[in-house]
């Protein structure tokens, strides 16, 4: 077996029974985690997800079972040494308040005996990676930073000695929603570069769906209810427990996973240019089976939705008739974005444009429903065949 095929983390019947308790807190947890993937442990409070994570770096010593990291059994041996090889991020950040940002980030390299120059260079590199200017921040103290900045430093500190494995315990849990969203996006972008093997604990299914390459939904005693990709978990929950945990909004959540470029846009909408003759436009609209057409400007950017009635009114600039074409989305937007736009739009459709703003096609409710059904793998072909022209697109 080559190194690239070998799983990065293997848990073999990992069990923890706390003294004085009859039932184990973690009961025979076995799983195999591939190199470079983010696996999210998600479950309600008390299901043992944090305990399971802390068994991996042996903050809690397992009662039985094995932890194998990169082919090496690390269940016994020096736990301090093990932990220096595993990045660790916690919700409270755990930055030492009496040490500067640079000293905090340099903690593990210093434990590993790196020389000062190397630590200093690494600190600057890491601060840059998490989007903080080393000149400004390296000599500050944690209390001089905002919550979001502290959590960035927490992530930088965990990556300091370039560990192949990182454990993250609700790292963005204590941060306001807007900053959390930004940190999640930044972290996903960073992960695309650094390709760490990450175990990420959260109780928030939406965060799990966003961050996870695979999600382990846990029930009491860390029993795995389902361990699969976010798409599979949303479309094929293994049982009622998983379905309940996903909650009522499973279909809506699924919309966050697909992008417009992945679905079939409607492209046969009649279009015209603002500069064209009204008569020619009218002719084109009548020949289509649509009740409205989309007018574009010279750069093919959507401007107005017009009906046949609008086009009959002679003597008015085309720029003022009909309804403005709001609700514009791009190919990389999610279906959730598109749904949001089309709900807010005048005509019940979201116009898709490219990066320059030029018209590509439209997405309507039908498109989205078809995509959702396709994800559920419920005879997607049937629904595509049934799809009807949105005759009331411009109403």
């Amino acid at each position, binding site marked *: 077996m080559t190194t690239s095929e070998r799983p990065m983390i293997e848990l073999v019947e990992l069990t923890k029974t706390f003294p004085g308790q009859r039932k184990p807190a973690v009961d025979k947890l076995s799983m195999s985690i591939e190199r470079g993937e983010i696996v999210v442990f998600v479950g309600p409070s008390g299901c043992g997800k944090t305990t399971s994570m802390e068994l991996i770096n042996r903050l809690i010593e397992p009662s039985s079972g094995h932890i194998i990291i990169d082919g090496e059994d690390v269940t016994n041996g020096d736990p301090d040494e093990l*932990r220096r090889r595993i990045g660790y991020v*916690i919700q409270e950040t*755990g930055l030492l*308040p*009496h040490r500067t940002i640079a000293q905090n980030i340099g*903690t593990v390299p210093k*434990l590993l005996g790196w020389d000062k120059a190397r630590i200093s260079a690494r600190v600057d590199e890491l601060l840059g990676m998490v989007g903080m200017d080393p000149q400004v921040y390296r000599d500050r103290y*944690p209390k001089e930073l905002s919550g979001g900045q502290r959590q960035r430093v927490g992530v930088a500190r965990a990556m300091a000695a370039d560990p192949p494995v990182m*454990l993250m315990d609700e790292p963005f849990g204590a941060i306001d929603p807007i900053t959390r969203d930004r940190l999640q996006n930044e972290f996903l972008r960073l992960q695309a570069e650094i390709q760490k093997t990450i175990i990420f604990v959260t109780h928030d299914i939406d965060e799990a769906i966003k961050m996870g390459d695979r999600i382990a939904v846990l029930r009491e005693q860390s029993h795995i209810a389902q361990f699969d990709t976010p798409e599979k978990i949303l479309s094929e929950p293994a049982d009622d427990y998983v379905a309940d945990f996903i909650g009522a909004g499973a279909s809506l959540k699924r919309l966050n996973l697909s992008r417009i470029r992945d679905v079939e846009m409607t492209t046969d909408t009649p279009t015209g240019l603002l500069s064209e003759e009204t008569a020619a436009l009218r002719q084109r609209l009548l020949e289509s089976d649509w009740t409205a057409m989309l007018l574009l400007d010279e750069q093919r950017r959507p401007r107005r939705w017009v009906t046949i009635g609008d086009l009959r009114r002679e003597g008015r600039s085309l720029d003022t008739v009909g309804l403005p074409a709001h609700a514009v989305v791009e190919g990389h937007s999610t279906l959730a974005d598109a749904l949001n736009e089309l709900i807010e739009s005048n005509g019940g459709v979201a116009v898709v444009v490219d990066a320059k703003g030029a018209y590509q096609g439209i997405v309507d409710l039908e498109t989205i429903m078809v995509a959702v059904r396709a994800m559920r793998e419920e005879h997607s072909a049937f629904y595509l065949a049934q799809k009807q022209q949105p005759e009331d697109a411009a109403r």
Partner: protein
Amino acid sequence: MTDAPVVASGTGPLKVERASDRGSVLSWVGMPIFLAVVFTGTYLWVQSQELGGVEQRVLTRAQLTSRTIQHLELTAVSTLIVILIAIPLGVLLTRPFARSLVPVVLAVANIGQGIPSLGLLAIIFVAFGQLGFTPVVLGLVAYSTLPILRNTMVGLQQVDPSLIKASRGMGMSSLAILLRVELPLAVPVMIAGIRTALIINVGTATLATFFGAGGLGYIVYNGITLNRTTVLITGVVLVSGLALVVDYLAGVVGRLLAPRGL
């Protein structure tokens, strides 16, 4: 760190010095100026009095100097011994394996603090069977152990558990966590305890004169028994002034030792 005052049992609230107080000029120079005024005023007042035989015998430079030095020796030696006993004990009692000993040790320390100081010194004198420096120091140690012990424990216990968890998670050994995380973060509270112990010892050492160990209590006692107001006031000013000087110096040291960034 919270801003809440840390209370050591039986000693009232203690103000924990914060690093951010460093800048305040008034807090640095206010006390020295006050003390200089009081000492100078007392000196000039004593100079202006007609001194009788008793005053001339008691209020000599040699007498005052040696009594002050005796007093400082009692305070310094007893506080040093308390620090050497109470801080390691406090560290020990906050380790998980020693948790069951905590109530026992605190009960003993509370007894020391609970008995009136004169009574405690008398008991030790009876038990020791002799007068002098050593039994008085023992009494002072017993009397002032609690604030340092208590504050060491409180200081260590109030360290945010998530810091210790994160430090363990990064692979720091227990000893490294104690030395580089827990103790530095407990320093402000521990210093507050040491400061309290110093004040207690300066004050209680006044009683040393009854047990043959001298100190500034000798002057106060002479002033009272011989009914010499000048002597009494000089003694009182010296004892109180000394307490304030010691407290001030402890405060300065505390500020210098407090970790930055809190």
